[in-house]
C-alpha cells in the first residue's frame, strides 16, 4: 500500500540522508568504480601505475580452465550447501510448526547456528573432521587412510559444505517457520477436511504456498555461499588441497592479495558482482510475480 502522508521540506531529507549516502558513495560506489577501472587495466601491485588492457583481463580469466573449474566448483558448492541446509531447516520447521508441547525449546536451539562466526564453526568442524583426531578421524583407525580432507579434495570440499550448511540452518529455519506460521491455519484444515494427510498437505498446500520463501531463501543461500564461504575456507582448508575448495570469492582474494594480481582479481570481482546482481534480480522478478496470490 502506498503511503500518502508525507512531509514536505526541501532541505531536511537531504540532511538526514547525507551521512548514509556519503558512506555508501565512499565505501561502495567508489570502490566499485575503482574495480571496474582496474578490471580494464593492468595495475602494478605497488601502485606505481597502470596500463590499459581492454578486455584482456576478462579474456584471460575466461580463457583459464582453472577459473572455470572454480566457477563450476562454486556452483556445486552453492547448490549443495543451499540444498542441504534448506532441506534440514524445512524439515525442522515443518515439525516445529505443529507446535507440540516443549517446541519452544527446540525452536530456540535451532536458531543458534546463526550466531556463530563462520571461521569459528570452521575451527570446530575442522576438529570434528580432522583425520588424526578422535571423531570422524576414528574411521581411520578401522580403515587407515580412508578419510583425509588434507589430501583428498572431495573430502575437503564435503567437509566445508557440511559446515556451511550447518551454519545456514538457523537462518533458513527462522524463515521457513515464519512462512509456515503465516499461512492461515484454515488452509491446512481445509486440506485435512479434503482428506489429505500431513505429507500430502505439505506437498500440495504448504510447499507451494511458501514457494516465495523457498525461492527467497534459495537466492539468499546461493549468495551467501558465494560470499560467506571466505572465512570458512580460509580457516578450514585455505582453498586446498590443490584448489579443491577454492571457490570464486576465495580465488579472487588469493589472486589479488597473495598473487598480487589486482587487475585479474578486479575482473573476477566484477564477474562475481554481476552474478550476485543477476541472482538478486531474478529474486525481485519473482517477488513481483508472487504478489498475484491474493
Amino acid at each position, binding site marked *: 500500500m502506498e503511503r500518502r502522508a508525507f512531509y514536505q521540506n526541501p532541505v531536511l531529507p537531504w540532511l538526514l540522508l547525507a551521512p548514509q549516502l556519503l558512506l555508501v558513495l565512499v565505501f561502495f560506489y567508489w570502490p566499485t568504480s575503482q574495480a571496474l577501472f582496474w578490471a580494464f587495466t593492468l595495475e602494478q601491485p*605497488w601502485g606505481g601505475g597502470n596500463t590499459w*588492457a581492454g578486455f584482456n583481463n576478462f579474456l584471460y580469466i575466461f580463457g*583459464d580452465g582453472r577459473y572455470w573449474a572454480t566457477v563450476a566448483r562454486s556452483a556445486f558448492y552453492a547448490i549443495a550447501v543451499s540444498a542441504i541446509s534448506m532441506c534440514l531447516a524445512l524439515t525442522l520447521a515443518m515439525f516445529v510448526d505443529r507446535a507440540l508441547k516443549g517446541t519452544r525449546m527446540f525452536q530456540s536451539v535451532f536458531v543458534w547456528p546463526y550466531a556463530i562466526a563462520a571461521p569459528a564453526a570452521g575451527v570446530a568442524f575442522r576438529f570434528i573432521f580432522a*583425520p588424526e583426531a578422535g571423531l570422524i578421524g576414528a574411521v581411520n583407525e578401522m580403515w587407515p587412510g580412508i578419510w583425509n580432507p588434507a589430501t583428498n579434495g572431495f573430502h575437503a570440499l564435503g567437509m566445508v559444505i557440511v559446515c556451511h550448511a550447518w551454519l545456514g540452518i538457523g537462518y533458513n529455519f527462522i524463515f521457513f517457520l515464519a512462512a509456515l506460521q503465516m499461512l492461515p491455519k484454515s488452509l491446512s484444515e481445509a486440506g485435512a477436511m479434503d482428506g489429505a494427510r500431513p505429507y500430502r498437505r505439505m506437498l500440495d498446500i504448504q510447499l507451494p504456498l511458501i514457494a516465495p520463501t523457498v525461492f527467497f531463501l534459495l537466492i539468499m543461500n546461493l549468495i551467501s555461499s558465494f560470499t560467506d564461504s571466505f572465512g570458512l575456507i580460509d580457516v578450514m*582448508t*585455505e582453498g586446498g588441497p590443490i584448489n579443491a575448495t577454492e571457490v570464486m570469492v576465495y580465488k579472487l582474494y588469493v589472486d589479488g592479495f*597473495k598473487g598480487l594480481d589486482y587487475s585479474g582479481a578486479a575482473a573476477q570481482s566484477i564477474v562475481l558482482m554481476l552474478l550476485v546482481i543477476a541472482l538478486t534480480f531474478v529474486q525481485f522478478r519473482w517477488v513481483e510475480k508472487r504478489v498475484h496470490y491474493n
Partner: protein
Amino acid sequence: QTKFEFWYGLSGDLSERIQEMCGTFNQSQADYEIVCVSQETYENNLQNTIAAFRADKQPTVTQISDGGTLDLMLSGAYVPVRQLMEENGYDIKWDDYFSGIASYYSTSSGELLSMPFNSSTAMFYYNSDALKAVGFEGAPQTWEQVEKIARDLKAAGYDCPVAFDPTGTWQWFEQFSAAHNQPIASNGNGFGGLDAVVQFNQGKFVDQLTWIKKMYDEGLFVAKSKAIGETANDAFVNAKCQMSSSSIADHGTFGKQAIEGMLWDVTMLPLWEGTERTNTLVGGASLWTLKGSTPDQYKGAAAFYAFLATPKQAEWWSTVTGYIPVTNSGFKAMTDKGFYSAAPYKGRELAIQSLTATPPTEYTRGVRLGNFGAIRLEVANAMQEVLFNNVPVQQALDAAAERSNAVLRKFEATYPGQTLP
C-alpha cells in the same frame, strides 16, 4: 627519540629471537626506537607491506624473502641500502659479504639494494639414532642412500621414514635444482630479463618428482604440512619422522624442540649418484628500506643495519638461529673460535659449504622471476596433484609450467618497457 617500524615474516621461535634483537637495539642506544611487527609469514609480510605501501602506511624497514626480490626491485618503492648507508655516514665493507648473497640482492651493476640479513639454504636433517638402528652410520649423501635407509626404516617398523612437505617447493624443488645445476627458468633463471620462461618441466626435477611419487606410494615419504595437521618440522622434532629437508634456519629451533634424548644431525642436500654438486641458493630474506619515511627514521634504519652488521650481533644471531653469518669475516671469526666444531652448532658450517660448493653458475645465482610466490604455488600444486591425485608427473609439471609462464607474461605486461636493474 625517533620511532620507526620493522615488519618481518617470521613466527614462532624465530619471531621471539627477532623481538629479542629489537630489544637489544633499543637498549643499545637512545636515539631511536624500533618497533618490530611480525606478519607471520614471508608471503603475508610481502602482501601487507604492499597494501600498506599503497596506503602510505608502510614501515621503514621490511623483510622480504628471496622469492620476493624481483617484486621489490621493480616496485620503485625502496631506498637502496648502499645509498642509505652512505647518506647517513656509515661505511660498510660491502665486499666482505659472501658474493653469492650480495649478488642475489644487487643490481646487475653490482649495487646492493637491500640489507642481507637472515640467509640460509636448504639442508637435510636426519635422526641419527634411527639411522643407526637400521645400520646406517654417518650422513646420507645420495638419494639412493636415502631410499635404502627409508626402506630399512619402514621394514624396521618406522611409520614415517621421510617427512615430505608437499608445499615445500623451496627445498624440494628450487634447491634440488640448484644442487644439480638444473635451470628453473630460461634467461639464467630470469636474471637475463623479464621475458624468461620456466623450464622446470624439463630435466632432472621431473625424474626427482617421479621418484618422490614412488617413495610416497610406498609409504617411505609421508606428507606432512600445516594443512595435514602436522608440519614436517614438527614430525621430525617429535621423532615421528626420521628424515626431513628444511632450512638451516631451523637448526636452532630443532635444537630446542627435539624431544628429550633424541640424537639428530644435519647434512647437505643429498645428490643423485654420478652428479656433481653445484652451490645451492641463498635462502632466507633481506631487509628493504621503503620510501616514504622521514630522514630521522632513515637514520634510525641505517643505525639498525649498522647494529646488525656488528660482529657481536651477527654472531648472536647465527647462534640462536641457524642462519648463517653473511660476511666472510664473520664466518671466519666464528670458525676460528671453534663455534662449528662442537654440538649444538656443529653441522651449520655445512650450509656455507653447500652455498659455496662451486662458484655460482647461470642456474645457481638465484631466481629472479616476477611474482615468484605465485609460481611456487603452481609447483606446490603440481607436487600435490602428483602425490594425492595420481596425475602423471610430466602432465602436472607441464600444466604448472604453462600457468607459471602466464604469470610471468602478466608480470611483464604490468611493467611494460622496464628492464631489470
